[in-house]
C-alpha cells in the first residue's frame, strides 16, 4: 500500500514536471465540474421556487445559471477527460515506456528475456504504460468524486433527511452490479484462450505462407468452421455472462427506484407544507437520480486504481528487477587490446532456471590466442549456451572464464562487447534499410559508408545488395512493405553485420551457413577462415564456430565435442578420428561422411 502511495506521488510529480499547465488545467476542470454539478441542482430548485413566488430577477438569474451549469458541466467534463488522457499519454510514451524498454535492454545478460516470469510482466506492461500513469490520476479523481458525493448527500439532506435513505439503496445496487461484473470478467478470462485460438485460425487461413499448405490439404472448410465455432462460442459465453450481470444490475436498480419513489413521495407531500417547496421536488429528482452515478463513478475510479494493479504491480516488479541487476553491473576492467595468451574456461557450469540438469556442466579447456575453435554436438548439448557464456550473455553459476589471465567477470561488459562480434543462428531480421541492417553491427560507425561497404564485401553480400530495388537504401522485410529476403539472404545480412567490427578479439559464428547451398557455404567459409586467420594475426583473435554439420568444422584448430552439457572430447579433427575405440565425434562424423563416401 505504501509502495502504491509513493508511486502515485512519484507519477504525479512526473506529470507535473512534464506538463505543468495541463496538469493544473485537469485539476481545475475537476473543481469546476463539481461546482457546476452542485450549481445545477440548486439553480433548478431556485428557478421553480422563484417562478412560484414571482421573483422575476431571481428567476432570470437562476435560469441563466442553469443554462451555464448544464453546458459548463458538459464541456469541463470533456476537456478534463481529453486533457487528462493527453498528459497521461505524454508521460507514458516519453517517460514510462522508455523506462520499461531500458529495463529490458540495460541488463547485461539475456537470461531474463528467456524467463516467463519476466516476459509475462513485459507483456502485461508493454503498450499499457498509460495505465501506470493513469493509476495515479485515478486516485486523485476518486478523491474528487468523494467530494462530489459528499456534496450530493448534503444537497439531498438539505431537502429532507428521508432522502438520505437513498444512500443505502445505491449501495445495494452497487453490490449487485459488482457481482454481475465479476461474472462477466470471469467469462472474459475463461474465453480468452478461445479468443486467441480463433485469431490464430483466422491468421492461418489469410496468410499466404500458411494458406498454401491448407489448400493442398483441402483443410480450408474445416478450419473456417472451427474458427467460426470458436469465435461464436466466445461471443455467446460472454453474452450469457453479461445477460446475468444485466439481470443482477436491474434487480439492484429496482431496489434503488423503489427507494427513490418512496423518498420522492415524502418530499412531494411536504412540498405543500410550510418549510417545503416545489423547488425541493426538482432538486430531489435531479440530484437523487444522479446519486447512484456519482457513487458509481467514485467506486469505479477507485476500482480502476485497483484494476490497474494488473499493470502497476508488474511495472514495479520490472523496475525493482532492473535496479537490482544494474546495481550488480559494477565490473570496469578494460579488455586487452590484443589477445596474447589464451581464453581459459575453468570448471564452467550453468543451469537454466527451473531446469533439472545443467546446460553446461564443469567445462574446462584452454583456447590459445589466435585459435579457430569449433563447438559441435547435437541439439541441446550445450554448445550455444557455452557461446553465450563467452559473450557474457549469461553469468556462469560456478567456475570462470579468464581472458589473458583476467577474470571475464571483472571486465566491464560494454568493453568486452566492443571487442566481440557474432552472427547468431536466430539472427535479427531488422525491418529497415539494407545498409542500416548491416551498420547495426557497430552503431558508432553506422553512418560510415566505407565501414558498411567493407562489411558487405567481407560477407560477400555485395551482389545481394546490388540486386535490391534501391540497393543499400532498400527497405528489407515484408512487415513495412519492403523487399522480403530468403532465409539464406537474411543470413548474409547477419554475417555482414557481424563484420562491422574490424578488430574483435572474439568472433562467434553460430550455425553460420545452415540455410546456404553448397557453393555459397563453401564461399562463405573460405572468406571466414581467411578473416579469422587475419584477425588471429592482427590481435590474436579467437574464432568460435558452432555447428552440428561436420563438413564445416573439420579444419578448425580445436574441436570441442559437447554432449549433455559436458565437454566429452576435444582436439583436432585427425586426433578425434584417431581416438582408440572411436568416440562421439568419430561416430557422428561417420554418419554424415558415409553419405559422401565413394560408392
Amino acid at each position, binding site marked *: 500500500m505504501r509502495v502504491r502511495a509513493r508511486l502515485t506521488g512519484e507519477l504525479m510529480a512526473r506529470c507535473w514536471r512534464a506538463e505543468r499547465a495541463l496538469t493544473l488545467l485537469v485539476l481545475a476542470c475537476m473543481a469546476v465540474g463539481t461546482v457546476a454539478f452542485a450549481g445545477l441542482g440548486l439553480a433548478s430548485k431556485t428557478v421553480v421556487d422563484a417562478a412560484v413566488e414571482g421573483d422575476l430577477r431571481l428567476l432570470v438569474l437562476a*435560469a441563466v445559471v442553469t443554462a451555464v451549469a448544464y453546458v459548463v458541466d458538459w464541456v469541463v467534463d470533456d476537456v478534463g477527460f481529453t486533457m487528462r488522457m493527453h498528459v497521461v499519454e505524454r508521460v507514458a510514451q516519453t517517460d514510462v515506456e522508455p523506462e520499461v524498454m531500458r529495463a*529490458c535492454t540495460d541488463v547485461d545478460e539475456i537470461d531474463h528475456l528467456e524467463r516467463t516470469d519476466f516476459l509475462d510482466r513485459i507483456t502485461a506492461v508493454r503498450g499499457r504504460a498509460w495505465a501506470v500513469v493513469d493509476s495515479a490520476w485515478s486516485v486523485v479523481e476518486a478523491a474528487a468524486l468523494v467530494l462530489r458525493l459528499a456534496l450530493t448527500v448534503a444537497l439531498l439532506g438539505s431537502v429532507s433527511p428521508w432522502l438520505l435513505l437513498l444512500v443505502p439503496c445505491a449501495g445495494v445496487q452497487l453490490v449487485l452490479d459488482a457481482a454481475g461484473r465479476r461474472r462477466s470478467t470471469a467469462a472474459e478470462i475463461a474465453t480468452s484462450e478461445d479468443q486467441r485460438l480463433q485469431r490464430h485460425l483466422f491468421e*492461418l487461413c489469410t496468410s499466404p505462407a500458411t494458406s498454401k499448405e491448407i489448400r493442398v490439404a483441402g483443410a*480450408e472448410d474445416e478450419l473456417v468452421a472451427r474458427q467460426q465455432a470458436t469465435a461464436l462460442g466466445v461471443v455467446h459465453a460472454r453474452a450469457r455472462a453479461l445477460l446475468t450481470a444485466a439481470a443482477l444490475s*436491474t434487480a439492484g436498480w429496482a431496489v434503488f427506484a423503489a427507494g427513490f419513489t418512496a423518498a420522492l413521495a415524502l418530499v412531494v407531500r411536504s412540498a405543500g407544507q410550510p418549510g417545503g417547496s416545489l423547488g425541493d421536488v426538482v432538486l430531489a429528482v435531479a440530484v437523487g437520480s444522479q446519486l447512484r452515478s456519482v457513487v458509481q463513478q467514485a467506486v469505479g475510479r477507485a476500482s480502476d486504481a485497483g484494476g490497474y494493479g494488473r499493470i502497476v504491480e508488474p511495472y514495479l516488479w520490472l523496475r525493482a528487477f532492473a535496479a537490482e541487476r544494474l546495481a550488480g553491473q559494477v565490473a570496469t576492467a578494460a579488455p586487452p587490446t590484443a589477445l596474447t595468451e589464451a581464453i581459459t574456461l575453468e570448471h564452467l557450469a550453468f543451469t537454466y532456471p527451473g531446469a533439472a540438469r545443467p546446460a553446461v556442466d564443469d567445462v574446462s579447456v584452454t583456447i590459445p590466442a589466435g585459435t579457430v575453435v569449433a563447438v559441435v554436438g547435437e541439439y541441446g548439448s550445450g554448445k550455444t549456451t557455452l557461446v553465450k557464456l563467452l559473450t557474457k550473455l549469461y553469468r556462469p553459476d560456478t567456475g570462470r572464464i579468464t581472458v589473458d589471465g583476467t577474470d571475464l567477470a571483472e571486465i566491464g561488459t560494454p568493453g568486452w562487447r566492443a571487442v566481440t562480434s557474432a552472427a547468431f543462428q536466430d539472427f535479427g531480421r531488422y525491418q529497415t534499410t539494407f545498409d542500416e541492417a548491416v551498420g547495426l553491427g557497430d552503431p558508432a560507425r553506422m553512418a560510415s559508408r566505407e565501414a558498411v561497404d567493407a562489411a558487405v564485401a567481407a560477407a560477400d553480400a555485395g551482389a545481394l545488395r546490388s540486386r535490391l530495388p534501391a540497393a543499400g537504401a532498400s527497405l528489407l522485410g515484408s512487415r513495412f512493405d519492403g523487399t522480403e529476403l530468403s532465409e539464406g539472404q537474411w543470413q548474409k545480412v547477419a554475417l555482414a553485420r557481424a563484420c562491422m567490427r574490424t578488430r574483435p578479439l572474439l568472433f562467434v559464428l553460430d550455425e553460420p551457413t545452415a540455410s*546456404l547451398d553448397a557453393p555459397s557455404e563453401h564461399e562463405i567459409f*573460405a572468406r571466414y577462415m581467411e578473416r579469422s586467420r587475419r584477425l588471429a594475426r592482427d590481435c590474436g583473435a579467437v574464432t568460435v564456430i558452432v555447428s552440428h554439420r561436420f563438413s564445416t568444422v573439420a579444419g578448425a584448430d580445436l574441436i570441442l565435442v559437447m554432449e549433455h552439457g559436458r565437454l566429452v572430447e576435444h582436439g583436432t579433427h585427425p586426433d578425434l578420428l584417431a581416438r582408440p575405440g572411436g568416440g562421439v565425434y568419430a561416430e557422428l562424423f561417420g554418419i554424415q561422411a558415409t553419405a559422401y563416401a565413394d560408392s
Partner: protein
Amino acid sequence: MQKTVRRLCAATRERTALLALLPGAGRPLLAVLVAVRVLQALLPAATALVTARLLDAAATPGAGTAGAVLLVGAVLLLGQTCSVFQRPLVTLVRGRIDARHRADVMRLLTRTATLDVVESAEVQALVRAATADPREWVEKTPAEGALGQLSVLVRWVGLVSTAAVVAAWSWWLVPLLVVPAVVVRHLVRGQWVRHFRIWVDGLPENRRAHYWGELTSAPAEAKELRTFGLGAWVVDRRQRHLHAQLDDVWADDLRAAREKWWVLLAAVVPLGAAFVVAAVGTTRGHGTVGALAGLLAAGWGVFSAVTGTGDALMVEGARPVVRAAEALRARLTEPETETVPGAVREIETETRHVPGTATAPEPAAPHVRLEGVTFAYPGSSGPVLRGLDLEIRPGELLAVVGLNGAGKSTLTKVLAGLYEPSAGRVTADGVDVRAIGARAWRRRVTVVHQDFVRYQLSLEDNIALGQVGGDRPWPDPDAVRGAATDAGLGPVVDGLPAGWRTPLARSRTGGVDLSGGQWQQVALARALYATRAGARVLVLDEPTAHLDVRTEAELFRRLAGITQGVSTVLVSHRLSTVRLADRIVLLADGRIAESGTHDELMALGGSYAHMFALQAQRFARGYDDRLETGVLS
C-alpha cells in the same frame, strides 16, 4: 457542386451498406436492440414530461400525486434497465456480424484458384485492412460501424422527441435550440473526425514504433542488441517513430481544447436565451411552473441528444474495413478457370469410393509430367521456371537439387496446383491438372513445405489436417497413429501429458511447445497421413533442415519403406541426403540441367558432380590445407 453531390451519394451508399449488415445478427435480436435503443432515446423527453406532471400535481392542492411520483420512478427504472441490457445485446449483435465478416474474408482467401493472387502485396494490404480485429482505438469492426450508424439514426429520435416537448411550450423556441444544437454537433464531430484522421495518418509510424519497441524484449534480437551495443539506439529509434506520429496528434489535442470555447458559446447563448424567455413567460402566465421545469430539462435534452460523437467515430473507423472487404470480394471472385467437364468425371469416378469399403484398392500413383512449364511471379523481372520439362514416374523417389533461388520451392508449388504455369502444362496420366480441377488434384498431392504450419491444435488434429474432405470419415485415428509412427513420433507422443489430445502450443491449457525437430516430424506425419488418405504424390521440401544428425539419418534410411506406392519428390540443397533417390535432377536457371542417378551424374562430371565434390571434400580434408594450397584464393 457536382463533386459534393457525388461525395454525399458515396457516403450515403456506405452508410446504407453498414446498416444492411445489421440483419445478419438475426432479426429478432435486432428488433430487441432497436427497441431498446429507441426507448433510450425517448428517455430525456419522457423525464421532462413526468417531472412537469409531478410538479403540476404537487402545486395543485388536493390533487393526487402518487401516480405522478410512480411515473418518475418508473421512467428512472426503465432508463437504467435499457442501458444495462444494452451491453449483452450489443455483444451478441457485434459478435455475430463480425464473425460472419471474418468467415467471408477467410473463405475469399482460401478459395481462389491459385495462390499468387493471394500473395500479391495489393491483396495482402486489403486483408490487413479487412481483418476486423482492432488493435488500435482508431480501428473498428464492420459491426461497430453498423451499430454506430444505427445510433446516429436513433439520435434523431431523441432530438425530435425533446424538440416536441419544447414545442409544446412554444414552437418558436424549437429552431432557437435545434439549430445551435446541430451546429454544436457539427463542431464537435468535426473535431473528433479531424483528430481521428490525424491519428490514422500516423499509423505507419505507429506500427514502426511498435516494432522497434518490441525488439527491446525479443529473445532472438536480445543477443545482437547486447553484442553490438544497440539497446539505446533501438529505444531512440522507437521514440523517433513515436514522435513522428504523436507530435501531430498531441498538437491537435491542444487545438481541440482551445476550440471548446466556441462550443461553449454556441451552446450556452441559445440555451440561456431560451431559459430566460421561458422564465419571463412563466411569470406572465404562459404555462405552469411544471411546464417550465419540463422545458429546462427538454431544452438541455435537445443538446445532449446530438452532442455524443462516439457513434460517428465507429462509422468512420469501420469504413476502411468495409471498403477493403468489398475490394477483396471484387478482386478475388473472378470466375475460376473453366474446367473440362468430361475430364473431371473421368478422374472423379476413378477416385470415388463406396462408403464402408475402406479396403477398396487406392488409385495408383499417377504418371505426372511437367511440359514446358514457365512461371514468373507477378511484378518480378523474369520467370523463375523457363520451359521446364520433368517427369515423375509412378512410385519413384525423385530428388530435385539446385542452388538457393534456383526455383525449387516454386516448382513444388506449381506441382501442387498452387501456381498456374503461364506457359506449358502439368499432366497426370495424360490429363491436364487444370481439367481435373484444383481441389480434386490437390487431394492426390501432399507437400511438406519448408515453412510448414504449426497449428495450435491437438497433436491428432495437427496430423489429420494433412488431408480433409473426400468421402472417407475424418479424422481417421488409425491413419493418424500410423503416420505418426512412420514419422518417428512415437517417443514424442509417449512424452505428451494428454497424448494425442495435447495441444501443441504452450499458450493453450495443458499445451506443450515442441522443438524445431519435433515439429518437423509432425509436419512429415501430416503429409504421411495424406498419403494414407489417398494422396499419391508426396513432395518434401527440405524436410530435415531442423533434424539432428541421428534422426535425419534414421529417417532417410526408412524413407523408401514408408512411401511405398507413392511418388516422392525430395527437394534439397544438401546433396548427402539425395544419393539414395531413384533419380536426381539438377535445377538451374529454371530448367532441368542434369538428370540421372547419383552415379550417372557423378560420371557426367557436370555441376552436380562439382557440387557433390565440394561438399564431400570437407569430409576428406580440412579447409586449412586447402587454403594453403591456394584452391580457394
